[in-house]
């Protein structure tokens, strides 16, 4: 490669990189999600007794095989840590209480219904919707089964029917969207015998949670999980121990899709950057072609001499 060509090439590479870096650094603000309509559930781990009525109620409400109610009294399931799956959208796990073996900690898990859901932002076809009442729901008519939502979710919630060759579904808690529409409580909330689950307006639930912590400062740690995590979630938890001990992920208060959306907006703001790149390349093409022709004709002239 001649020195000239190398220098030109370097220059052009430099410009391209600078342009790309510039694009990625444009940051877009994640839109504020604030609405008095957002509902939530407060899960009080200090109250939950681990009866698993919620698990069964959820299965029944979603036409999933629920099995015999008797099976749910068998506490052997707690020997193994379980996660929500395609056939149970919510599961309860039990953790030993080092202070009092007789009162273990029971924890219900399901989709957190994030205020800024990663699944909604990531889905290639927009199959997820963040509804006005806070519920994050999934549309089977759009989903292509790419499973990017599962990569994106910070709580590892969506599950996929790997064993189906046709129409495999993404399964996750839908906040009983069909029930709440008709004014019913979510099935799990309605069937909790000890009121470990409280359904209501998210802002009011936050007040309630903080009141409870304040009233029993010895019983609870000073934290409402879900108040700020990944920008806040509809489901809120209070607990007697650190949430890491209950297998909750440690998350900051930044919405999970933030960085990705900033990059996307940077590259795609109104298609201007791609079009600019197109124009620039067109210009380079034309100029370098002319230059090449000029040099070629010059060399010819010199050869002619």
């Amino acid at each position, binding site marked *: 490669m001649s020195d000239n060509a190398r220098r030109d090439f370097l220059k052009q590479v430099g410009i391209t990189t600078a342009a790309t870096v510039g694009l*990625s650094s444009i940051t877009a603000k994640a839109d504020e999600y604030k609405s008095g309509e957002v509902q939530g559930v407060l899960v009080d781990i200090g109250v939950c007794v681990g009866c698993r009525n919620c698990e069964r109620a959820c299965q029944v409400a979603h036409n999933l095989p629920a099995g015999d109610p008797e099976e749910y009294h068998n506490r052997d399931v707690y020997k193994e840590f379980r996660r929500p799956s395609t056939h149970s959208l919510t599961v309860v796990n039990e953790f030993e209480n080092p202070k009092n073996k007789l009162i273990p900690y029971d924890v219900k898990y399901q989709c957190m219904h994030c205020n800024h859901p990663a699944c909604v932002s990531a889905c290639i*076809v*927009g199959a997820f919707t963040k509804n006005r009442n806070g519920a994050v729901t999934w549309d089977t008519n759009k989903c292509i089964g*790419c499973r990017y939502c599962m990569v994106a979710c910070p709580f590892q919630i969506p599950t996929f029917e790997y064993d189906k*060759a046709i129409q495999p579904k993404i399964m996750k808690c839908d906040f009983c969207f069909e029930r709440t529409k008709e004014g019913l409580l979510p099935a799990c909330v309605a069937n909790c015998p000890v009121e470990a689950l409280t359904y209501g307006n998210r802002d009011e639930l936050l007040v309630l949670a903080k009141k409870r912590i304040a009233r029993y400062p010895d019983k609870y740690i000073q934290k409402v999980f879900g108040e700020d995590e990944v920008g806040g979630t509809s489901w809120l938890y209070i607990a007697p121990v650190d949430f890491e001990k209950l297998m909750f992920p*440690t998350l900051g208060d930044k919405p999970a899709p933030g960085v*990705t*959306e900033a990059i996307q907006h940077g590259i795609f703001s109104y298609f201007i950057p791609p079009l600019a790149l197109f124009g620039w390349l067109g210009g380079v*093409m034309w100029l370098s072609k002319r230059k090449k022709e000029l040099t070629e004709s010059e060399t010819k002239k010199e050869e002619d001499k």
Partner: protein
Amino acid sequence: MSELVIPKPVKHKFFTPGMVIVTLLALNGLYFLAKRFLFGMGAVTNLNNFYPWGLWIGVDVAAGVALAAGGFVTAAMGHIFHLPNMKPVIRPALLTAMLGYTFVGIGVMVDIGRWYYIWHPMIYWNGTSPLFEVGICVMTYLTVLYIEFFPIVTERFRGKVNLPNILSIFNKPIEFLFKLFDNTLGKAMFIFIIAGVVLSTLHQSSLGTLMVIAGYKMHPLWLTPIMPLLFFISAICVGIPMVLFESLIASRSFGVKPEMEVLKNIAAYVPLLLGIYLGFKLGDMAIRKSFVYLFEFNKYSIAWLIEIIFGVIIPLVMLNFKKVLNSPLWLFIAATLVVAGVLINRINTFIIAYHPLYAKVAYVPSFGEISVTVGFICLMVILYRIIVMIFPVISLPVKNEEKY
């Protein structure tokens, strides 16, 4: 170069012992592919609710796109920047890109649970999703690649259309279409060439954006907001080595002398590109202070070191030596290292670095998954061979030309 080199169909027998093995491996892959479509993803893959993406996304799709970057890199260098010496490699690189992207498309179809909805992104848009952007750009770019390849088809058949018997009535119309194409689309080709480069820039970098949203589930040695930039630069880096890699294999397989003059000239661009890549990679680590993770001795630090030392630093040093540039064997080794380096980077990013919460055992691809991936690579080799035997893709010295 004393003799003239022009692209023309290669004459050689199709089956060699190597090609028999390749064909068998392709058939083995097709068996598991059939199983996947009949009984679902679970019947073939080791994927689960913790590891939704595995070998097929990491290698068939992500690495596939990167290794097919030779198409846009050579097109940009040759047709847009008009750098010297690019001509003989543009066509082989274009063919690789066309085949590569075709198989990326097929790979996506195999990996998504509802393959018959693969067209959904065309009507259901989600602008915040980098995967959506990758999907749309790859679909469009694949079309552009076919358009770019079409002149090679017309070149082969123009003036030679001679269908037998009854079909001969189509001879004239087909000739007319070819002529029409050369006179219209052929003239507008520069639009498609630029579009191809723009589309590649977009989706090569957006592939890097994909794992950003996984956040804390990604190991910090790889997770950085400049992942899209790193993916883009590494795609440019691997473009030329991929061309070298193929040309050297193809010339060996077809028993022709490799065009060392051409290859060593384009190879000279590579150290510069690798240097830029390494600079960004290390600079970013220094800024984010993620290098502390290199001092932990675990699978992450080892994977990272292999990727950077063998895939970037060694070839970067090697390609500065005249001896390497002049020897087909050494050049082949250096090119292979860069190709392997990018392949390992994509595997590291999509598989190794991803460590989801709650997973009890780490994901290891199943025999079926590996079979399908290997099978696709073999199918590509077979198609490449068929196409270069029919169409004028590979540049051969005119001296050796037999009349055809």
